């Protein structure tokens, strides 16, 4: 949409990327563009050949941001797998802690460990994780993963809440690892979103 000198129009694009979505009179919003989205997709990876890790990069998330990672793990073999989430290529498990609670039918269990597991999957099963990722204002990276384990058969319910023990000014990579070679299998999908400000 062209911008005329002395005017700004709703939906106009400034410098090629900035969209005007609000107009204020003083501090009052007098017009707001309803663009229909709350999340911005920044990475979308579907696995075509089984791998041991996936790196999502090409973005910078600061303390302003909240990221949401949706992971759909497909497991095509008779081995159960556990997945870890790391950040900024800091893949030393002991640089993280996590607390989990899990429920399998009527059995409830919990654990705290010096790692950052955020999902797992049974043999020949599928698991869905919806994970909020937030860089706290004092620089720690937190993750809150809500997991439906084995959603294709008999679902379990897990919550994995994790933290880094190091601080950083930004998140530039999300690194997903599995505990055994090539355990991130064909058909798995990772969608990384940023909440729009």
């Amino acid at each position: 949409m062209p911008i005329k000198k002395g005017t700004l129009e709703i939906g106009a694009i400034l410098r090629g990327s900035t969209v005007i979505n609000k107009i204020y009179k003083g501090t009052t919003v007098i017009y707001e563009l309803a663009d229909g989205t709350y999340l911005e997709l920044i990475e979308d990876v579907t696995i075509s050949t089984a791998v041991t890790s996936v790196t999502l990069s090409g973005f910078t998330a600061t303390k302003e941001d909240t990221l949401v990672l949706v992971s759909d793990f497909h497991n095509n073999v008779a081995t159960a797998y556990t997945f870890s989430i790391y950040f900024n290529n800091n893949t030393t498990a002991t640089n993280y802690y996590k607390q989990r609670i899990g429920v399998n039918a009527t059995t409830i269990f919990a654990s705290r460990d010096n790692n950052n597991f955020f999902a797992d999957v049974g043999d020949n099963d599928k698991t869905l994780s919806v994970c909020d990722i937030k860089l706290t204002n004092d620089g720690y990276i937190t993750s809150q993963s809500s997991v439906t384990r084995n959603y294709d058969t008999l679902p379990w319910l897990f919550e994995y809440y994790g933290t880094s023990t190091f601080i950083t000014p930004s998140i530039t990579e999300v690194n997903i690892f599995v505990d055994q070679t090539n355990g991130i299998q064909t058909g798995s999908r990772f969608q990384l979103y940023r909440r729009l400000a």
Partner: protein
Amino acid sequence: MGLIYDNTISTAVTQVDIDLTATPIEKGELYELVFTHVNGTGSFSSISLYANNNTTPTNYYRQYTEASGTGVSGNRANTSELAGTGDNSTAKVKIYVKLTNDGKAVFMATTVKRANTSSISLTEMHVSSVSTFTSLTELSIVSTATNGIGINSRIQLYKVAEKVDEAIVGSAVTQVDFTVDIQKGNEYLLVSDLTSNSAGHQIYLYANNNTTASNYDTQRVGADGIGVSGTRYSSSYLMYSYDNGDTSLSIAKLKLANSGLFNWQSSVVGEYGDSDINLQKYYGSFDQIITSVTSLSIVSSITNGIGIGTRLEIWKLI
């Protein structure tokens, strides 16, 4: 859409008031409050959230569940405490803020507690007001520890966009249907603010008019007072509806997985607004492979179990 309040704490305080008089929170809207809490004191800092300067704790009820190490616990109290963190530590809190259709302020908080330490723990706390409001013009975050909201704490309040459909029930019904278009690339929320019209009964969620219970499985975990329990069902549970007139709120993430199987993760404040408040989660899936979700049906297990004033909303996040 988007961020409507952002405050980084530069001097430790005991209370932060979020003035919303210019853009009040109304019924039918949905907000997320993201609070990264730095407690620089030598005391545990418990955090309460209050609406409209109604800061009397006993005007609220709260149910929580916590996992700390291998311990799992729960409890209910006459308070609005919904988060907190230990001395000299950090917490990350996400809170859904909702003004229900009958005017209660409901807060659903999940917390990574002691996030920078080896004592990390996990809490879910659900709060509802006893008082009713026509809108929320102020939210107050209050620490039990003096100056327990420390330097570098940050409070961000987001208004969720976009509501694509809603139904407000004018006379009791058994079923409410929505036409939707959920693809594998989409993220949706279903918000169910339910008023019961009969004795306790189940509320089911069905996709694409497939109402065969055995095509669905659901895992539940719940905290009711100090009792924590789990159940798996060979059916499609979204939430439970309690006694006649009781109200409950579910916020459910909806996802069509890459496998073509439809999933939901429902977090429920059961019996909000009274002393029987409880916390439930239902994670379910549909075992039929589909290319899209074209309809959603919210169905009561009892005829006309969905009462007057029930409000159901579909939110598209992308």
